[in-house]
């Protein structure tokens, strides 16, 4: 997060992933590959990013292939098993029992990682993020169907496990190290927060 001159070139470099994504979307929408589509996509992407600028994501991404595979694998398995479970709960005669709202103390302090974590938690059936306290790094998650206190604890642990997988897939070395730190040590570590 060094202070560089905020020229147009710098801004474009920051938004390169967004530009690539927009060009890709444009070409997918046309459905066929041609140079005209590519050039048109680049023009449209530039217009969109210049006219509707987004704040930059602090720190950027760092993708670790092994961690990413692990994250995606667990995510797919979760999606299928929990999807089947929730589907069964909707059709079984007894319906659902009681649900719970649990607050989980997280260990990461990065806007991007927290966003990925919240998205993936909400996508997986059975858990849904209701609220997030950015200052205290806590996440309030609504859990469908818990039978007893043991279930609540298991859900808490599964949120933390998911957090660890997200950090190991997308986090920097410092953030991975922060997973093992205690609360006091973590408070001193610099976070990646959008000012």
């Amino acid at each position: 997060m060094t202070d560089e001159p905020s020229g147009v070139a710098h801004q474009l470099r920051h938004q390169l992933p967004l530009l690539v994504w927009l060009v890709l979307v444009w070409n997918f929408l046309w459905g066929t590959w041609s140079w005209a589509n590519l050039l048109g996509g680049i023009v449209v992407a530039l217009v969109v990013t210049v006219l509707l600028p987004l704040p930059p994501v602090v720190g950027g991404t760092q993708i670790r292939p092994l961690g990413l595979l692990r994250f995606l694998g667990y995510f797919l398995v979760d999606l299928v098993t929990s999807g089947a479970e929730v589907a069964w709960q909707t059709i079984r005669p007894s319906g659902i029992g009681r649900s719970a709202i649990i607050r989980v103390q997280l260990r990461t302090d990065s806007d991007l990682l927290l966003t990925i974590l919240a998205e993936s938690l909400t996508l997986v059936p059975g858990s849904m993020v209701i609220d997030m306290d950015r200052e205290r790094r806590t996440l309030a998650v609504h859990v469908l169907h818990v039978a007893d206190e043991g279930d609540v604890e298991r859900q808490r642990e599964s949120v933390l496990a998911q957090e660890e997988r997200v950090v190991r897939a997308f986090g920097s070395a410092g953030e991975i190290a922060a997973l093992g730190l205690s609360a006091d040590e973590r408070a001193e570590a610099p976070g990646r927060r959008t000012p």
Partner: protein
Amino acid sequence: MNDISSVGDVVAVVLLLIGSFLCLTAGLGVLRFPDVLTRMHAGTKPQVLGFLLIMLGGAIRLQGWSTTWMLLLVAAFQMLTAPVSAHMISRVAYRRRHVRRDLLLVDDLRSGEARDSVYRGDEPADAPPEEPGRALVESRREDEVHRDDGAQREDGADRERPS
């Protein structure tokens, strides 16, 4: 052409059927679950999985890369946006007390402060304060605090003003 002839077609049909069934359970859940939060689970979750299966089945069945790319885009945007809308609706529902608290085993989000039991002004008209007697006392006390604050501020303004 419409005959189910190849292995690919069979796989596509199975995927489409499973996906449709999951979307059906989503509808059932919205109908059967007791409150907003649980209904949002039903409305967004099996539907996402069912939707992905339908996209997969469609991509296998329909020929041509152009359709496949389109379906891929649809799936990507669905997975990006579905959690956000589910989260926003649930959050508003919780804040406006559309919650069956008797069905919650644990509620860590509830602060247990006076604010929980008094009107905050953003509830729906039919949401009663959860403890009417205490709520009345609290809201009166809050009124008094506000009145005291106001009086002090006026005093301060008078004092600062040079005569």
